[in-house]
């Protein structure tokens, strides 16, 4: 027997231990994921809101996806004609779920998970290009349809024009616009 004594406690180098730990963690995550898919342990009903971690993860994923992909201009020259046309489209297609200034959503919308937000400050949260991107493309697993399938690009631009002026639209403005619209 010659040579230095071998350490008996450490059988593998540290990096092998790390790799093993990650492999086990990955395998566990895989098994858990498959269990969720196959065993029905996840409650898919919309009656309870998402837990805070899941709500944060999905919502943040959406925000970052839009920011990465929307591109385009960050300013918009709003025209009154387009904003007016956008109002008509908004009132007909969007207000049911998103409401408006002093305008309630349909009662059943409170049963949706995630629930559609009011959009009074949407223009502060998103650039015009991002709003266009969201309306045209919709958002998976939220109930937000891709309006690009049924509205023209010009109509979606009209909607973005209206969203830009919505923060300056009071409840009575909205009712006036609605009344004027009904006359046509």
């Amino acid at each position, binding site marked *: 027997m010659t040579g230095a004594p071998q*350490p008996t*406690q*450490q059988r593998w180098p*540290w990096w092998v*231990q*790390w*790799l*093993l*730990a*990650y492999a*086990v*963690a990955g395998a566990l995550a895989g098994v858990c994921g498959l269990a969720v898919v196959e065993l029905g342990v996840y409650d898919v009903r919309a009656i*309870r*809101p*998402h*837990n*805070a*971690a899941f*709500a*944060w993860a999905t*919502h943040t994923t959406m925000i970052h996806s839009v920011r990465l992909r929307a591109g385009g201009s960050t300013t918009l020259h709003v025209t009154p004609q387009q904003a007016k046309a956008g109002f008509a489209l908004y009132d007909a297609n969007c207000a049911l779920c998103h*409401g*408006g*200034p*002093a*305008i*309630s*959503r349909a*009662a059943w919308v*409170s*049963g949706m998970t995630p*629930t*559609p*937000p*009011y*959009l*009074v*400050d949407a223009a*502060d949260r998103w650039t015009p290009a991002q709003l266009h991107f969201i309306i045209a493309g919709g958002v998976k697993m939220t109930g937000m349809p891709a309006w690009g399938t049924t509205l023209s690009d010009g109509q979606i631009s009209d909607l973005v024009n209206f969203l830009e002026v919505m*923060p300056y639209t*009071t*409840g*009575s403005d909205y009712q006036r616009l609605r009344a004027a619209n009904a006359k046509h």
Partner: protein
Amino acid sequence: MRTPGLGWRALAIFAGALLMAGCGQQAGAPHWKTGGDPHQGAVVIIRESCGACHVIPGVQLANGQVGPPLSHFAERTMVAGVLPNTPPNLERWLQTPQAVTPGNAMPNSGLTDTQARDVAAYLYTLR
């Protein structure tokens, strides 16, 4: 000599962090007794999308800047600047803000009496 099993310890910490991330929306003892359930109120607040217009501490994604932030709501003297901040007034405001100040931006909610009482109970936990 390296401590063996460091990877395992990191894994345990990671798993612990995941577990803790599952908890949230802890409501404290209410300031006013409304008879409502603050936990149920938090659920109603999420469902009604109140957070699209208001900052509401303890409610997921409630970061709206349309209306006033509802932090320290239990300490607030007036509701919407027109009603003394008492449970009946707050519940009335939550259900029919358009009847209290017509034309203000907050829509009527269609909340039931029970839902309004629960939401009020939650807001009174914000001190």
